[in-house]
């Protein structure tokens, strides 16, 4: 644990573990630093699982509230970021179920208001559309691996499924996603062509 004078502000050097311990003990400042530090990754996972920019914000909000409310239950057996991803994933899935629908790929108007941004907006919409068409369990697994960069055991812990299931879902999710992105690329030339067989080792 990093030595920190009592009452001193928490800094970027403060570890997640220290912040989580302090937050669990009631230090609101530590909790705020922790939430701020992980808000981006929570939102990113929600964004790709939910598909809608607006619904993702709602899911991310609920996830951050859940993290804040449940900070006392974080036992430190996993990395704090892994725990955050678990909460974010659950919040995103809850949001989807609350909507009772498949993720709807949308983009906020502001994201495409900058000249020259249309291409990247199209690319993101293609990704969202592609993600929306693959089964939820595959989508989540691919997002946790290739966006969140969690390793397989971490993903297994987040999803509470066996390691073999994680591997299968990722493989099938990637395959399905690449196929859809290739079709989108053929349509608008904005999405990078997938590299066939990149994972064949």
């Amino acid at each position: 644990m990093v030595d920190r004078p009592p009452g001193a502000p928490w800094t970027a050097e403060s570890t997640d573990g220290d912040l989580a311990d302090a937050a669990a003990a009631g230090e609101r400042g530590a909790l705020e630093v922790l939430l701020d530090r992980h808000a981006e990754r929570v939102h990113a996972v929600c964004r790709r699982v939910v598909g809608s920019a607006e619904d993702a914000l709602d899911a991310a909000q609920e996830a951050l509230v859940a993290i804040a409310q449940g900070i006392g239950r974080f036992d430190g057996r996993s990395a704090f970021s892994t725990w955050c991803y678990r909460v974010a994933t659950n919040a995103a899935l809850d949001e989807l179920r609350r909507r009772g629908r498949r993720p709807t790929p949308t983009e906020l108007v502001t994201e495409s208001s900058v000249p020259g941004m249309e291409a990247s907006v199209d690319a993101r919409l293609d990704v969202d559309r592609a993600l929306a068409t693959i089964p939820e369990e595959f989508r989540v697994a691919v997002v946790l691996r290739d966006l969140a960069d969690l390793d397989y055991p971490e993903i297994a812990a987040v999803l509470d499924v066996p390691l073999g299931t994680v591997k299968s879902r990722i493989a099938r999710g990637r395959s399905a996603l690449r196929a859809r992105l290739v079709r989108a690329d053929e349509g608008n030339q904005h999405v990078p062509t997938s590299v066939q067989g990149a994972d064949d080792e």
Partner: protein
Amino acid sequence: MSDEAGDDVRRDDELARSLEVPPLDDVTRRRLVRVAMDRTAPGAAPQDAARGRALAVIGVAASLVVGVVVGPVVVTRPKSPVTPPAAGSNRDVASSETDQSEAAAAAPAPPQALGDLGPVTDLDALARAVDARLQTGRSGASEDAASLAVPCAATTVGELVLVSATGTATLDGRPVVVRIGPAPSGEILVVALDATGCVAVASTPLAPA
């Protein structure tokens, strides 16, 4: 499938680039954090914030409604847009408001200006946007002067006893005027009017389910 056995443990960098999400702007990120902190502040129940806002709107509306019912005078709304009377004090509010209105005989204070709420996909999202704007306490007046000139200002919304707040939005691609206020039942509603024809197209409760 050939790679179903899971030999590949590497991150797929190409997919990673495709999946990248634009970073949150500072305002949005801080708002997310602040709301999470507020909703988990010691003693705050999860619904307290939303209930408080709904009560604030109801309280202001109730003071006007009671004034209209009690006497044939126009009730002057308090200067502050959110000054809810204590529960059960409607009689006191009515008498004090009646006094004020007899002296001022002024029109009710204008609705709180929420400004443009941005694009929303459905009514639930619209209600959440209204909720979020009310939470931040922003009036919208300083950030978007043009939005103060809200269309359909002369249109009466039958569902609402009065309009407590107003704004604009784009509801599923359609420009709408948003009116917030109490229904006769006391429930706070968010009503969307088509900005072109000023006709109510949909409404939804403000308070979360």
